[in-house]
């Protein structure tokens, strides 16, 4: 089982690593442009690959419906505020202007965004957005239909395939493919491509939650920053990696849905029965997510917990709708309540903070990941990124839009790139030896134990409470874990996948530590809460950009979000 051995050599125009919404839209556009496309994903079926393979119920987009507010330009005006200033506006503009067209493309794939009862679009306004930009819909088959269209268009798909390395032409520095292996059979893939798109999602399994089960996470636990890590290793720049995201969730099960409760008119109450959110934000339960976290943290610290969601005052028709749609985002949430013996009409639901992840720090249109230009190209030539692993993350709609943009750009690049370098056997062999080394280590360090240590360090010092000494302690711990990576052992190909996920998680946690220490302010509420620097400072409206240094460790620079040039650190940081 652990022998593997067979090696498949493949060639394509556009190679896409990750078959979620971003990768699938990229594939669709690149095929439309006439290019050969190959998609890799760790999941077996493209129809179920990615974070919304099981369904989704909201889609954020301007629709150009004729209403004055309903345009990309109007939404764009608000993006500097939405992102607390930390976004590349040119990239955001490309994404937002693409959105209405992508919506039409998705409808062309057979996705019905209309409410089945009324036959109309059901649009809601939420959380300070300047209009009713959220489309509520039954997206149980959303990803399924996208995948069907992508396959019908002629893209090739290889499932259960984990990419491990991006191939770089030593003469030109351009990306030209990737290596990977099948997580069941150990078959090897050596893929040469004229352009490579990374669409591997955010970084999960990085912190603890109430159940203590690492795969019980709000976001998809099989997204572990593999694309961040692979691209970092070949010199791509990352940014906004200091920001974390958490949500409020029923105690014991980290799931989507906080905003459904809040949007419906749920009351958040403490153990005294007090609606506590108004103490922290005049918008009460409808404050932005990061404020809901702040409120939960403050009440819990003040000894006012447990904290609850109370739905009992809501009218029957609202509760009926709520119960009907409870399982759209996560099939099993109604089962959880049933098995726990909770009746939403009668019982309070205890809520807790979820684990944190590195995603977009709780705000739309800002991503934590690979820096890209308005075509989605990273700082490495011919290497593109889209979705939650990129600098612009706007939920599935943002992923679809930047996916489409990068798909077209990568296709155009591939069309003019004639020569592809050969991959020499010696370098394939040395990569295989490195990747498979854990298979020969018998009773070495297990990935579970290794990851548990990362989660403890991140939860204690790099999550919702940050302070310099604690963060330095965590960084030291993460560096010590890094030195132990050569001890990691795997007993089969499946575990080898987990081992490599664990090393991606550790690298992202190290980058998180370094950048969170660097940012000497607080910004975006719970996303970066420095108790030693509690204020938000205009001098810090700058991106911290990370790149691999000559010795392999992350090197930081500061960038003005608006003009892509490097800037000097604020005075307080200039030491010695």
């Amino acid at each position, binding site marked *: 089982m652990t022998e593997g051995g067979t090696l498949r050599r493949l060639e394509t125009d556009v190679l896409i690593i990750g078959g979620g919404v971003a990768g699938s839209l990229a594939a669709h556009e690149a095929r439309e442009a006439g290019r050969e496309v190959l998609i890799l994903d760790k999941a*077996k079926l493209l129809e179920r690959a990615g974070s919304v*393979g099981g369904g989704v119920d*909201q889609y954020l987009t301007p629709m150009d419906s004729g209403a004055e507010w309903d345009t990309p330009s109007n939404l764009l005006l*608000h993006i500097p505020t*939405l992102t*607390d200033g930390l976004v590349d506006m040119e990239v955001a503009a490309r994404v937002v202007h693409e959105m209405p067209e992508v919506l039409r493309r998705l409808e062309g794939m057979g996705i019905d965004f209309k409410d089945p009862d009324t036959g109309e679009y059901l649009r809601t306004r*939420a*959380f300070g957005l300047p209009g009713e930009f*959220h489309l509520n819909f039954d997206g149980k088959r959303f990803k399924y239909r996208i995948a069907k269209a992508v396959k019908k268009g002629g893209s090739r798909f290889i499932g*259960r395939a984990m990419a491990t390395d991006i191939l770089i032409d030593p003469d030109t520095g351009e990306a030209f493919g990737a290596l990977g292996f099948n*997580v069941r059979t150990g078959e090897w893939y050596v893929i040469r491509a004229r352009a490579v798109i990374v669409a591997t999602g955010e970084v999960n399994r990085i912190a*603890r939650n*109430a*159940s203590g089960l690492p*795969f019980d996470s709000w976001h*998809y636990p*099989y997204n572990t920053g593999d694309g961040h890590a692979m691209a970092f290793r070949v010199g791509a720049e990352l940014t906004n990696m200091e920001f974390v*995201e958490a*949500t409020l969730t029923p*105690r*014991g*099960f980290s799931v989507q849905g906080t*905003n459904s409760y809040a949007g419906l008119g749920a009351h958040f109450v403490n153990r005294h029965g007090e609606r506590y959110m108004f103490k*922290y*934000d005049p918008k009460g339960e409808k*404050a932005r*997510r*990061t*404020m809901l976290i*702040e409120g939960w*943290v*403050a009440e819990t*610290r003040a000894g006012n*917990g447990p904290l609850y969601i109370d739905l009992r005052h809501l009218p029957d028709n609202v509760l009926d709708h709520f119960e009907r749609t409870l399982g759209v*985002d*996560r*099939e*099993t949430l109604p*089962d*959880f309540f049933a*098995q*726990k013996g909770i009746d939403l009409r009668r019982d309070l639901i205890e809520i807790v*903070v979820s*684990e944190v992840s590195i995603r*977009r720090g709780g705000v*739309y249109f800002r991503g934590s990941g690979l820096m890209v230009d308005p075509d989605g190209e990273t700082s490495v030539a011919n290497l593109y990124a889209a979705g939650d692993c990129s600098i612009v993350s706007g*939920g599935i709609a943002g992923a679809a839009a930047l996916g489409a943009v990068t798909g077209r750009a990568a296709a155009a690049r591939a069309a003019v790139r004639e020569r592809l370098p050969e991959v020499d056997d010696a370098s394939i062999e040395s990569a295989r030896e490195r990747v498979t080394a854990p298979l020969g280590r018998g009773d070495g360090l297990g990935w579970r134990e290794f990851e548990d240590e990362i989660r403890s360090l991140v*939860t*204690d010092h*790099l999550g919702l*409470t940050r302070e310099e*000494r*604690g963060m330095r302690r965590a960084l030291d711990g993460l560096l010590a874990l890094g030195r132990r990576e050569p001890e990691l052992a795997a007993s*089969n190909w*499946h*575990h080898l*996948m987990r081992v490599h996920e664990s090393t991606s998680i550790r690298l992202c946690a190290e980058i998180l530590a370094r950048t969170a220490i660097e940012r000497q302010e*607080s910004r975006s509420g719970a996303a970066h809460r420095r108790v*030693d620097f509690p*204020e938000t400072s205009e001098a810090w409206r700058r991106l911290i950009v990370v790149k691999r240094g000559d010795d392999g460790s992350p090197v930081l620079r500061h960038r003005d979000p608006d003009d892509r040039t490097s800037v000097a650190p604020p005075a307080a940081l200039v030491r010695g």
Partner: protein
Amino acid sequence: MAEPVRPVRHEPHPDTPRDTHNPIDVDPETCISCVVCDYVCPGDIIYAPDPTSNDLPVIKYPDECWYCGLCQQACPTDAITVVFPERMLASTSPVEALIGVLPPEYGGITVTDADRGGAGDRG
């Protein structure tokens, strides 16, 4: 004539921590030994039996389940039930620990207007 016996096989991979809860309950009465649950699982957790056999699928990596329920949703004979463990249904860990370590010299958290600022995120 009696149906052949189809034992439910809890055979997690030997590296799985002991006493790991099995999240995916397969009904031996209704499972038709197809491959759908294996194929839809995004975490490579469920291993279908040899299609020529009459065996039940094996939940090989039970501790890596996301509790997404794709298997339960896709099973053509409704033979799968996702079963939550006690650790999730009756979580008792101190949730204060999830907030992180606050050094004693810092009394609490200061919320500023900037925090309330932009717009949030749904999902």
